[in-house]
């Protein structure tokens, strides 16, 4: 596959929908903004990363767009612990 495909706006690396939320490893982040730019509902993911906060927003679609597009492997999903959530 041509590496130029990396630069096209297709999202074939999209991760499947998840019961979870987006967490970050801020030490890898260069604040480039690709995550925020691609979030379909305009969550400023980058700002969360700067403050080392997980994206725990009810609007988050967990669509995986930000996780898949971050070029530095900053973002990942952690599965929301359904058991804990129920208990809490």
């Amino acid at each position, binding site marked *: 596959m*041509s*590496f130029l495909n990396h630069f096209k*706006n297709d999202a074939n690396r999209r991760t499947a929908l998840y019961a979870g939320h987006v967490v970050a490893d*801020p030490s*890898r982040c*260069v604040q480039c903004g*690709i995550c*925020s*730019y691609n979030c379909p509902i305009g969550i400023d993911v980058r700002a969360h990363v700067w403050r080392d906060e997980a994206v725990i927003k009810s609007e988050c679609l967990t669509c995986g767009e930000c996780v898949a597009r971050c070029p530095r492997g900053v973002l990942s999903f952690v599965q929301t612990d359904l058991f804990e959530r129920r208990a809490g």
Partner: protein
Amino acid sequence: MKYVIVGAGVAGMAAVEAIRSVDLAGEILMVSDDPHGYYSRPGLAYFLTGELHDKALYPLAPDPQKIKFDHLKGRVTRLLQAEHALEVDGKARLTYDKLLIAVGACAVSLEIPGSKLEDVVKLDHLSDAKKILRLAKRGGTAVVVGGGITALELVEGLLARGMKVHYLLRGDRYWSNVLDRQESHIVEGRLQAEGVMLHHHAELVEITGRNGRVNGVRLLDGRAIKCDLVAYAIGIHPSLDLAANTALALDRGLLVNEHLQTNDPDIYAAGDVAQAYDPLSGRSVLDSLWNPAREQGHVAGLNMAGRKTAYLKSPPFNVTRLAGLTTTIIGAVGRGHDEDVLGIARGDSETWRDLPDAIVAQSGFDVNHMRLLVGERSLIGAILMGDQTLSKPLQKMISNRADISSIRGKLLEPDAPIADLIADFWVGWRKTIAL
């Protein structure tokens, strides 16, 4: 207390936040000369390829509504140490009690005949990136010279914008003091597959032009290449103009101790301009990396506001794309000298070339490639190309100096399945350490 911060990059911004977290009353003034203010420099590469709109490059700066500080646009032209004063744009004067110099680094300029022509470009600032895009719109052929990450970013950006690209390398392979021969080969192969014309042992001696516009280059061996644009990335140097004619201690950068303090107790330095003392190696090293710049700015800010804090350098680390291949570089992985870069490049660390005597364990070929530098008891460096599953585990293991004695022997066996060994080790080790 009056704090003045010169430079609105990530180091300066992190310092503002840190000072405010300690001192709510002091006055903070930031002075910077970039007309575009604070934005992500590493993001410029994605702006060039078209993955990002320029508006998206501006990160969340400390919000002046929430974190009180003033920002003045202007260039600091002189530092008057004895008077605790600065001169801005050659005239206005301001005073400080504590000063942070966070002015970053800039590209080493290309000094050959023709290098001042309009179509000769570098990539330091957003204004450079915008100029490159404007010129690339015309199409045609580009020649790229230099090394490290930025040279490839230029190659990839120009290619993505539809230009034909020649890439000139002085030596026999790409980034020879960080990558090994096989890794350079992987990168070069991928560039060639995209149609990039690579020229080894190619020494650029002249850029030719007509009516002020570039029309070609000439090499030392007499070869000539027709082109419309020349882009260079031959290294960077810390911006030391401000320190000229002062008593500040300099080496290749501004020398600072582990509190990011210069030899003047009221002046601190952080980010690309600082040559920071590393207590582990006992040496002072330059980095050109975003996260160390942020950490240094943070620690400098705390110290300026009176909270004594030491900067502990972690093994430098970068995740980047080399010819479209995601690559993680951690700790010490190479040595020696790269003919394409003078000193240090962007997204680079001197520590990467500090390889002590270590043994190499290597596996994989082409797009899934891993090289580990195995020390006596721990890993001291790693390069990972392609699949990045082990990138975070390796980063943690190297920065925490995980004791790998239990798998060291197996890692060094010929054809060892090093990825499996590391993955298994990680599963057990992570439980023993709070990450």
